[in-house]
């Protein structure tokens, strides 16, 4: 290993970051190399002198108070986003629930019952026509389980009942 490579390790040795097994190797080398020995001694001396430099005490009380005040003010704001998120999530959940419930009930609520009228032959004929048109008008396939499926089934049932009732009365 060249002196330059050994010197790269000297800093680690001085600052106690060199692994134990490499430490012994370096110490052995410095004992036989004047240049590396000098550098190690110089770095140790500077390190010791730097360590003796007086340390500043803390910042003024005013600075500490400003920071503490800011920390308290900011902290009061921190819980809000979480609470706000929770509140929004709750509102969203309730809204979705209402829409779903309302959506499922909508076919029964939205459909106006077919009012009963005195049956007439013309009416019966008309009803038959209506049913025929209704079933023919369904160009798109009815998907079981969809809202439109239940709505159409309901309407059809109502119409059939009317026809049946009117037939009974004759």
């Amino acid at each position, binding site marked *: 290993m060249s002196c330059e490579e050994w010197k790269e390790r000297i*800093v680690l040795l001085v600052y106690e970051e060199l692994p134990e097994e490499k430490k012994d190797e370096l110490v052995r080398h410095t004992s036989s190399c004047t240049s590396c020995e000098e550098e190690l001694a110089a770095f140790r001396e500077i390190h010791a002198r730097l360590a003796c430099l*007086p340390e500043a*005490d803390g910042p003024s009380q005013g*600075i500490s108070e400003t920071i503490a005040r800011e920390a*308290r003010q900011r*902290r009061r704001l921190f819980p809000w986003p979480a609470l706000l998120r929770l509140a929004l999530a709750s509102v969203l959940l309730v809204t979705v629930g209402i829409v779903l419930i309302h959506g499922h009930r909508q076919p029964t609520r939205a459909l106006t019952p077919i009012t009963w009228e005195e049956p007439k032959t013309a009416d019966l004929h008309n009803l038959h026509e209506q049913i025929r048109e209704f079933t023919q008008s369904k160009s798109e396939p009815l998907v079981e389980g969809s809202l439109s499926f239940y709505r159409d089934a309901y309407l059809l049932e109502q119409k059939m009942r009317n026809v049946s009732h009117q037939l009974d009365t004759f």
Partner: protein
Amino acid sequence: MSSNDDDILIQNYLSGDDRAFDDLYQRYRRRLFSWLVKCVQDRRLAEELFQETFLRIIRFLPQYKPQEKFSHLLFRVAHRLVLDAVRKNKKDRGVLSLMDVTEPAAKSESQGLEEAIQRIPKEQRAVIFLSEYAGFTFSEIARITGCSINTALGRMRYGLLNLRKILKEWEAI
């Protein structure tokens, strides 16, 4: 003090415990301030930078992730502010006030050493201060200053060599 403890204090602070922040502040108050004074050699400027560092940290804390040590984050922010301040100082005044050559013999040993440190390149100075006065390892210094560990080691070595050279010249006067 472990970084784990710092993380607990931060979590407690964010959950509403103001005293947790006070504890965190007390842990780093002197270490950071001392390091800043050494870096800028001006107590007033050090106080400004110290306050700005903590204000930025407070604003950042809600996004803090324990993947990075709090001490690294704190000194990284402070290090950037120091570099900006040095840059601004150079721009405003041409040179750092401490770069003005004064008669070294008229100063005490510690003043002479502090002055000598101010004469070495700022990157080398930063590594020396982070190691000597903030107690970071070279891998931590690399993370804080955003360089590789080899660069951090190289800066330290050349910083110490430059320091030795300056001190030798002054001692020869």
